[in-house]
Every structure is written in C-alpha cells, then in structure tokens.
C-alpha cells in the first residue's frame, strides 16, 4: 500500500526505515502538543514570559520561520511572474516549506495569544493602523494561498490523481497559479514588511523604533529584503539537506547555485540599506528621543558584536561569497554561505524581538533576561517536528522535485 502511494519511478527508503525516521519526530510532536495543551489549558503562566518580556521565544520563532518561509513567495514570483523556469524544480518544495513555516507560525500564535477563541475579533473589529492587523490579515490570506498552492501537489499524489475530478481541478488550478503567485507576492510583501513594522513602529522602544519611509518604518522594507534573502537560502539548504538524507540528487547544481545567487543579491541590497538605516538610527532617530544609541550595546550579553555579526559576519561575508560565481558553484562555499545568511536573518529577528524587550526604557529600570520554560520550548519543538513530519510525508508521497527522475536517469 505504502509503495502505491509513492510517485512512480522514484526511489524511497523502505517503509520501516521511514517509520524509524518519523518516530522520534512524532514523539517530539506529541511532547510539543502536551506543552501547548498546558499553555492553553493552564494559561501562559506556564511560560517564562512576563509583563516586561511580553513576547518571547514564540514570537521570535514566528518572525524567523516566516522570514525563512519567504522562499515560497519569492520562488513563485520569480517562476510564474518573471518566468525563471529554472526554479520549477524547487517550487513544490518551496511551497511545502512555505506552508510549514506559515501554518506553524499561526499555530504558535494561537497558543501565544491569551484568548484564541476571540482572535477573530481582529477581523471583525480591525484596527487598520496596527501592523499586527496587517500581519494577521495577510498571514491568513497567504496561508489560504499556500494551501491552494499546496493542494495541486497533493492532488497529484499517485492515488489521488486517479480521481479524474481532482486531477482536472488540479490541472485548471495549476494553470491559474500565476494569479496565486502574484497574490502571494503581494501579500508577502505586506506581511513580511509588517512584521518588520511591528517593531519599527514602537515609538516607546527607541531600540526598535525607526523613522517612517512613506507610511511604514524602514524596518518594513528591511524585513522584506532580508526575507527575500533568507527564502532562497532556506530552500537551498533544505534541498541540500534532503539530498544528503535521501542520498539522491534532486535538483540540478545550476539551480542550487542560482538560489545562492538570488540570496546573495538580495542580501547585499539588504545589507546596504540596513547599514544606512543603522547609521541614521544611531545618529538621529534614537538620540532625538533621549536614548544615546551606544547605551544599547553597553550590556554584557548584547555588545556591539551583535551589530557586527548581523552586518558583516552574517551579512556582507556570505553576500560576497554568493555573488562570486566560482565560489557559489562549489558546495563547500554555497552551503555554509546559505547557513550564514539564515543565521544573519535569524539574529536580526532575535535582536529585534528579544533585545528590544530586554533593554530598559526608563532610566531606573533594569536590563532583564529571559529564559524560555520547557513548555515554550516544547511548543517551539512542536512546530519543528510538525515541519519535519509534513515535509517528510510530502517528500515521500508527493512529487516534490520534478527533476528527481531525470537526475537519477543518465540520458
């Protein structure tokens, strides 16, 4: 039965091996579900968040996975709108990754808010000026889009495709994918940006606050750019990982290299803007609200090394590597660079979510630290495990890499 669900002509490990692989992740998922249950049933006192650290691990996770999930929209946009057909071989994988990241983020958000049963109030009584409203609307819509993008992949499963109505619907839906790609790109632009805006608008947190460019703070645009840099790297890295784990070539090397190039280009643009933005912030935005910027880096844990790591180590460095054709064509350069790109973006999200809250605003207030509780970690792991499981199932039973068969056939 398992065999008949696997795409014809591709090789997958034996079922028992697959179960063995799934099992630990399923256990992690179960543990995470228990942690999340505790948070929902007992309340968020189960976490180590508090009135000062009102956002913690989860929001950090949300921001990071959504940045990583940007691969879905960016690849879709390049493939369907800009017709970069070389990306066809990773689009399915990118869509699945996007779906995992976004649905995971939304699940965690539902645990994170205190009143999930009233969360629909945001739709019914929206405050259109709130970045979070924008994020909520866009995330929900985009998740719908991702589901619609994922649906065709599911419908092309070997067994499901036998139902003519599904396949015909899939066929027609796929033909219109350009619309979803466009809508996805549009929505992603807004919510990736709004996630940045989320912190950029915090007038009361001068560490995060940035001047407006138009109607949005500069972090809006920085987030869009950094997400576009992270997305391809994430697709690249997961593909590479899956190749390593399944011991198969799934995607042409040129495609990998092309993804690296995309990351590099976006990253260098991002770093450029980020540097200008940081300079303006240090010299004007922050001091004008009574906060000397160097004080932010006065704390043992968050020295200027953070800024250096973000801009140079995990920014400029991988960008330059990825922009050089010769280097990015070699896996030993390409993969670590992708890791660095992701580390840089993850660090950026960390700084914005955690450091912002750790830093005091009132002169007499103190710098605070926060360590997530096991329930928070469990919920976090739940999303990771869910992602691995969904990806593993998709990889096994869906045709994620169209090039897989020809890459394993030498003619």
């Amino acid at each position, binding site marked *: 039965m398992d065999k008949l669900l696997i795409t014809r002509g591709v090789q997958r490990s034996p079922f028992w091996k697959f179960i063995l692989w799934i099992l630990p992740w399923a256990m992690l998922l179960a543990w995470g579900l228990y942690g999340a249950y505790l948070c929902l049933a007992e309340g968020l006192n189960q976490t180590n968040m508090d009135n000062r650290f009102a956002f913690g691990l989860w929001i950090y996770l949300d921001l990071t996975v959504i940045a990583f999930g940007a691969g879905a929209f960016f690849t879709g946009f390049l493939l369907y709108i800009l017709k970069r057909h070389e990306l066809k071989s990773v689009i399915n994988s990118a869509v699945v990754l996007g779906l995992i990241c976004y649905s995971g983020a939304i699940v965690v958000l539902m645990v994170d808010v205190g009143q999930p049963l009233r969360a629909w109030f945001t739709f019914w009584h929206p405050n259109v000026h709130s970045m979070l409203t924008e994020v909520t609307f866009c995330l929900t819509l985009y998740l719908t889009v991702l589901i619609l993008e994922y649906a065709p992949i599911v419908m092309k499963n070997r067994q499901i495709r036998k139902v003519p109505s599904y396949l015909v619907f899939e066929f027609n839906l796929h033909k219109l994918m350009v619309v979803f790609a466009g809508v996805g790109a549009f929505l992603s632009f807004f919510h990736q940006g709004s996630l940045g805006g989320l912190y950029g608008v915090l007038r*009361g947190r001068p560490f995060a606050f940035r001047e407006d460019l138009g109607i949005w703070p500069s972090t809006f645009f920085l987030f869009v750019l950094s997400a576009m840099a992270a997305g391809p790297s994430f697709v690249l890295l997961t593909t590479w990982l899956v190749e390593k784990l399944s011991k198969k070539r799934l995607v042409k090397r040129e495609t990998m290299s092309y993804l690296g190039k995309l990351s590099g280009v976006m990253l260098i643009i991002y770093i450029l803007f980020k540097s200008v933005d940081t300079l303006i912030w240090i010299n004007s935005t922050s001091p004008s609200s*009574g906060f000397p910027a160097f004080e932010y880096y006065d704390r043992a844990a968050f020295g200027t090394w953070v800024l250096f790591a973000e801009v140079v180590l995990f920014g400029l460095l991988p960008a330059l590597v990825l922009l050089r054709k010769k280097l990015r064509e070699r896996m030993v350069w390409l993969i670590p660079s992708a890791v660095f790109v992701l580390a840089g973006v993850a660090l950026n999200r960390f700084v914005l979510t955690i450091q912002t809250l750790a830093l005091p605003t009132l002169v007499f207030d103190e710098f605070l630290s926060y360590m997530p509780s096991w329930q928070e970690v469990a919920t976090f792991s739940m999303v990771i495990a869910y992602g691995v499981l969904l990806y593993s199932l998709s990889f096994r039973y869906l045709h994620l890499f169209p090039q897989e068969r020809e890459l394993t056939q030498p003619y």
Partner: protein
Amino acid sequence: MDQTTVKKSRYGMAIDLDRCTGCGACLIACAVENNVSPGQPKVNERNGTTWMRVFEVQDGRPFPDAQTAFIPMMCQQCEVETPCVSVCPQNAVEVDPETGIVGQIPQRCLGCRYCMTACPYHARYYNWWDPKWPDGMEKALNPDVAPRMRGVVEKCNFCHGRLHEARARAAAQGSRQINPSDYIPACVEACPVQAIAFGDLNDESTDVALLARSERAFRFLARLGTETKVYYLSGRDWVRRLADRELARSKKETLHG
C-alpha cells in the same frame, strides 16, 4: 442636548516625588478599587498585576551618601501617538476623546500583548493566571469594576469606575456635568501625604493644571513625544534627570568631569 454641550476634559495627574514616602498605599488602594486579584503565591514582580508600580530609585552615590526617591508609575495616559492604541489589532485600546483617558477593554482584548511591548512605561499588565480571590472574598469586590479574565491585558484607567459613579450621581440631579470632587482616583484619595493631585488639565484653575505648569514639573520620557498626562514634580536635580537616558547620562559626565 447634543454632545457639544458636554465639556471636553483632559484628566491628568501630578505626583510630587519630593513628598512620596514609598508607603504603597496608592498601589494597594488601586488594587482594591480595581479588583486586582491577590494572585497566586508563585507570582513575582515580573508577572504579577499591579496597575501601579512604585519604583525605588537612588542617585547612585555610594554608602553613606545615597539619596532615594520613590516613583509611582502607572499608565501615563499618552495623548499624542499613544503607543498602545495604534498597535492594538482589534481596537481594544483607545483614547477617550471626552476625557483623554486611555481605555483598555479586556473583553475585546485577545491577549496578544503587543501593546505591552509598545508601552515605554511598562504600565500594562497581562493576566498570566486566572484571577482568584480567597474564599468568600468575591462578595467584597468593587461592583463598579469588572474583574478581568486570564489571558488579557489590563492597566490603569484613572479609576474609570469612579467616573461612572460621578456621572451617575450628576445624572441623578439631571446634570451632564460631574462635580469634580466626585471623581478622584483611589490612589489620589489614599495617599497619606497628599503627594498626588488629580483633575482636568483643561481647566486652568485646577491644582493639577497649576502643578503641571510649575518649574518642578517634568514628565518621564517626554522626548518620545507622546505627551503624557501624568506629571511628576521634584526640586531635586538628580530626580529630574531620571526623565530620560540622555539627561541621566549628562549627569554622569559632569560628575566624572
């Protein structure tokens, strides 16, 4: 009969830090008035609820020259670009145009806590626990203030229940205009040294309007530009320098230099 005949107020406070003894009567009175629950024994200073927090601050000089001041800190009722209002995704926070009071409606709140990250004064509190009172004490709750539930944010609203009461009292006499002495927040009423003045800042004759204009008056983090309506008073230079970090730093430099 229309709304325009009702006077628009801007309620504000002036807290004299040179008088405050840090006794904490204000925050207890506040909690009693606003049905803030005693909470669980596990509660600590970072995850409990107190609409008003009193900070003990020192001028940083070593033993035996240290000077101490107490700073009661509650919602500062920002008037301009109120940080928490614009961030709330579902309009659970708003500035009442008639009173200038920043209102937080727990029943609308979904508990995302975005407003808490937005507030520079850390004056917002989240109900990490189910509010619980010892047996029988629910009968002794203030009927004018609804208890909140777990998973929502709450904060000072200048004892709005008392404004309701004052309005009802005025209405019973057929008037729309409240008697100012009917509306005094619990902390103001409780302060044993009368360190807090409260009233309508629009009314030039009130104590609070006078104090707000005094030379001793300052506001915390005023450079954020949110135009808070809670003023602090101190004649002590080092206390006034606590207003923001730039000022605090300038002190250090003069000390060293």
